């Protein structure tokens, strides 16, 4: 407390310095408190209150939690979300690793830049635009994908309109959007590995596979973990692609947690229920991120 008084009313040069530093961060701190911290606390409070039509809210304890967490539509959404991310996260990370290692091995710098730019391109499109383009490619009657299949005499598929194919189809869109982003992170990491390591491996007579297994992958470990976590978070929050194409259909087969949250809050205006889901999303992602910290803390041995 004494510190703060001295910062607020500086007498010495050092105190004036401290005040200056604090003033520099003040706008950011104020903004983040108003836009994130206060609403987050309100979300938590809101999840324990029921708002009666007319505006008054009433404390109901954990009743909303019991209601939402025993609701089968909520668990369907959770299951769908997890199913989606189990398909898209490993695919994206593995493909990105392969592409990054391939790009890194290209001798011609110019071609490396050209191909890298192409892989990176979907990152610049909005998720809505990406999903809508893919919806056109997936079109059951006039879509390009079914045209390709017809060339090898496979009957047309219904893709986004089929119960079984809708989730893999949406997962593919996520992979397409995120592949370049992850590739860039891996490529930058690969380029920062000193060439001497590989020279040493060559002198020791390591084969290509051994170099990959014992040198490249261990050195990329921090980036791989980071990208996995980023992808998990990104895919857990999946909304735009689903909203733009299937709106959760057919028959809730692509309903996701954030879709449900959006509908609950802004279609049915059940803010209490939506707050419970908001807290659920926050707690889940917090757990994931903390796990990431635990893993990151382990020193990587070279």
């Amino acid at each position: 407390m004494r510190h703060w008084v001295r910062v607020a009313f500086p007498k010495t040069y050092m105190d004036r310095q401290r005040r200056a530093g604090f003033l520099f961060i003040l706008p950011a701190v104020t903004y983040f408190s108003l836009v994130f911290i206060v609403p987050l606390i309100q979300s938590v409070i809101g999840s324990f209150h029921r708002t009666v039509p007319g505006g008054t809210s009433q404390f109901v304890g954990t009743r909303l939690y019991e209601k939402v967490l025993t609701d089968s539509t909520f668990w369907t959404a959770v299951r769908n979300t997890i199913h989606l991310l189990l398909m898209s996260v490993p695919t994206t990370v593995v493909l990105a690793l392969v592409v990054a290692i391939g790009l890194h091995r290209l001798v011609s710098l110019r071609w490396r830049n050209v191909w890298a730019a192409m892989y990176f391109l979907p990152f610049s499109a909005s998720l809505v635009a990406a999903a809508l383009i893919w919806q056109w490619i997936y079109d059951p009657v006039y879509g390009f994908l079914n045209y390709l299949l017809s060339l090898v005499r496979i009957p047309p598929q219904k893709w986004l309109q089929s119960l079984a194919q809708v989730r893999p189809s949406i997962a593919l869109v996520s992979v397409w959007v995120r592949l370049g982003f992850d590739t860039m992170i891996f490529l930058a990491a690969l380029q920062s590995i000193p060439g001497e390591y590989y020279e040493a491996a060559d002198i020791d007579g390591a084969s290509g596979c051994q170099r990959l297994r014992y040198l490249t992958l261990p050195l990329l470990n921090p980036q791989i973990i980071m990208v996995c976590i980023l992808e998990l978070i990104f895919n857990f929050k999946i909304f735009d692609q689903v909203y733009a194409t299937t709106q959760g259909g057919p028959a809730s087969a692509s309903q996701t947690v954030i879709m449900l949250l959006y509908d609950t809050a802004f279609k049915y205006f059940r803010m209490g229920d939506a707050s419970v889901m908001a807290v659920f999303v926050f707690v889940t992602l917090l757990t994931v991120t903390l796990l990431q910290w635990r893993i990151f803390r382990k020193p990587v041995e070279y």
Partner: protein
Amino acid sequence: MRLRWLTALLLACGALTVFFPFFWMAVTSLKTAPEIQRVPLRIAPDHWMNLGNYREVFHREPFGRYLFNSGLIASVSAVSSLIVSSLAGYGFAKFRFPARDAFFFAIIGILMVPFQSVVVPLYLWVNRLGFLDTYLGILAPDLVSVFGVFLMRQAIEVLPNDYIDAARIDGCSEFRIFYRVILPMVKPAMATLLIIKFMWTWNEFFWPLVVVNSPSMRVVTIGLMSFTNIYFIEYNLLTAAAVISILPILVVFLTLQKWVVRGVVMSGLKG
């Protein structure tokens, strides 16, 4: 040697596959409605210069207005983010004051708060303040990003203190040091932040969907949705609209790609 060629070939195939949806979008936007429903499918449009769909997009929807809205919001959010982030970055990087690190970690911690977890109270606030359906309402959560603060702090931290001390000895005020000494040295980081923040806000969908009601306040991502409906979609128009919505950002992206990659690599932070 053969392996090397194989790698290059596979990479090229992959890159072309990744690029294909863009190509398909552009080609479809040049076709007429009967053309896209032709069986068997023809890849090339009948007339490469058929811009009728683009005219129709602007005719049916105030798409120019959407572009303007998106551009305005993305620019304001990029600039405001730049100002606040560089101030905070300087404060965090070069000053000592009580609880500095606690504040910094609190801000980094916000990265763990998904936006969807705060959207309901935020909506209620915006509603109460009467900002629904206004630029201010759309901008409210986009004015500063944690990524920006982090980026600017990292960039400023590595600058030598001697410059700052020299300026202080010359009697320069703290703000003037920031403005005249620090900022000119971190121009690359500033460019990165401006571009990335512009792109993010331009592509934003969830929050505008929540706060925007009237057609005149729509941004391009929302505007795109007006060309879809569950029963029948005119894909020739939709793809034309998609091209219009992507093109500005694509130009920015391709000309300034170096900076975007820098930003992505720098952080990988935005979850």
